[in-house]
C-alpha cells in the first residue's frame, strides 16, 4: 500500500518540478522538458518487453497459465507505452528537428518494438485454445526478444542518429547532467517504472477475478 502512495507523490512532485525548474537544455528551451516524460515512457516499453519475455520462459518451464496471463498483460501495457513513446517522440521531433518522422535509429527501434507487440497480440487473437495460445505466443515472444540485440548493431548503420549522443550521455557513457536534472530524471524513471508495476498488478488481479467469475479459468 505504502509504495502506491509513494508513487503518487513521486510522480506528482516530478510533474511539478519539471515545469518549475529551468529547461534542461538551453538551446531547445521549453520543449526539452519532454525529456523527463519521453525517456521514462520509452524505458517502460523495453521493461514491459523484458517482463513479457521472462514470463514466457516461466510459462514454458512451469506450464502455469498465470505466467501466460502476465506475459499477455505486460505486452498489452508495452504496446500502450510504445505508442506513447512514439507519439511523444514524434511531437518533440517536429519541434526540434523539423519533421515528425526521420527514421532515426531509436525511432526505428521503438517502431519495431511496436510491430513486435502488434504481431504478438495478433497471434494471440488468432488462436482459440488457451494452452495452445499460451505455448505459441510464449515461443514467439522469446524469438522476438532474441532478435532485438541485432537491431542495436544493424539499424544505426542504415540511418544517421538525431538523438543526442553528447549532451545527456557522452561518448564515454558518462552522464552529463546537472545534479537537479539528474535527480528529477531518475525520480521520473522510478515513478514511471512503479506506475507500470502498479497497473500491471492491477490488470493481473482483475483478469484473474474476471476469469473466476466466468468460471472458465484453470487458474487457481
Amino acid at each position, binding site marked *: 500500500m505504502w509504495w502506491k502512495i509513494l508513487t503518487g507523490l513521486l510522480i506528482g512532485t516530478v510533474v511539478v518540478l519539471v515545469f518549475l525548474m529551468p529547461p534542461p537544455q538551453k538551446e531547445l528551451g521549453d520543449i526539452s522538458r519532454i525529456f523527463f516524460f519521453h525517456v521514462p515512457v520509452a524505458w517502460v516499453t523495453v521493461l514491459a518487453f523484458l517482463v513479457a519475455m521472462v514470463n514466457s520462459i516461466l510459462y514454458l518451464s512451469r506450464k502455469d497459465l498465470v505466467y501466460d496471463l502476465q506475459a499477455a498483460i505486460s505486452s498489452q501495457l508495452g504496446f500502450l507505452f510504445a505508442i506513447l513513446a512514439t507519439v511523444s517522440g514524434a511531437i518533440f521531433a517536429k519541434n526540434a528537428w523539423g519533421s515528425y518522422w526521420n527514421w532515426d535509429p531509436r525511432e526505428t527501434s521503438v517502431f519495431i518494438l511496436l510491430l513486435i507487440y502488434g504481431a504478438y497480440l495478433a*497471434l494471440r487473437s488468432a*488462436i482459440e485454445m488457451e494452452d495452445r495460445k499460451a505455448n505459441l505466443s510464449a*515461443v*514467439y515472444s522469446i*524469438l522476438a526478444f532474441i*532478435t532485438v540485440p541485432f537491431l542495436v548493431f544493424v539499424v544505426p548503420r542504415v540511418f544517421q542518429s538525431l538523438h543526442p549522443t553528447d549532451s545527456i550521455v557522452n561518448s564515454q557513457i558518462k552522464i552529463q547532467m546537472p545534479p537537479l536534472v539528474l535527480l528529477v530524471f531518475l525520480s521520473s524513471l522510478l515513478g514511471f517504472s512503479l506506475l507500470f508495476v502498479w497497473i500491471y498488478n492491477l490488470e493481473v488481479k482483475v483478469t484473474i477475478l474476471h476469469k473466476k467469475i466466468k468460471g472458465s479459468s484453470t487458474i487457481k
Partner: protein
Amino acid sequence: MGTKSSTWTSRVSALFLKDFKSELRTRYSLDALVMFAVITLTVVSFSIGMFSLSSKIKSSLFWIVIFFSAMSGLAQVFIKEEEAKTSTLLKLVASPESIFAGKLLYNLVLLLFLEIIIVPLFVIMLGFSILNFWLFLCVLVLGSLGLVCSTTIIAAIVAKASVKGALFAVLSFPILLPLLVTVISGTNLASEGASFSQGLRDLQILFSYTVVMFVASFLLFDFVWEE
C-alpha cells in the same frame, strides 16, 4: 555414438525426401511460389519502366521480391501437415528435432531453388550488375540460411493458429528485419564490386544471426510441436 548419429541423419534425410517427393508429385507450393516470384518481379520491372536505378535501390527491390516470395511459400511446409491431418502420425514416427531439421532442409532447398530462378531474371530484367560475384553468393546463401532458420519455426507456429491468412508475414517481418537490413547492405556492396574485406562485417552479422536463430528455433520447436 556413430550409429546414433547416422540414424539421426538418415531420419532427417528420410523426412526431407518425403517432403521433396510429395512436392514433386503434388506441386503443393512450388508452382505457386515460382509464379509468385515471377509476378512480383514483373510488377517491379514494370513500375520502374525506363528509369535507371542505383544499385542500392536494386538490391532492396531484389530482397523485397525474395522476402514476399518466401512469405507466400515457406509456411506451407507445416500447414500442409495440419491440413492433411498427418502431423499426429509424424509425431509418432520421428523426434521433434529430426522433424524440424528435415523441414528446415526442405525449406532451404525450396528457397535456394527459387533464387536460382530469380537471380538470372532479376539480372536480365532490371540490368542488375553483380561485380563481386563470390561476395554476392556468400550473402545470398548465408541470408537464405538465416531467413529459413527463423521462418521455419514461425511456419510451425502459424500452422497451429486457427486463422492463418497474413499472420506468417506479420510474425516474420519484425524478426527478419535485422537480416533484411544486413543482406540488402551486403548485396549492395557486392553489386558495386566491393572487396571481400569490406563485406566481412555484413557476413559476420549474418553468420551470428543465423547461428542464434538456428539454436533458438531448435530449442523452442519442442514447445510448438509437443501438444
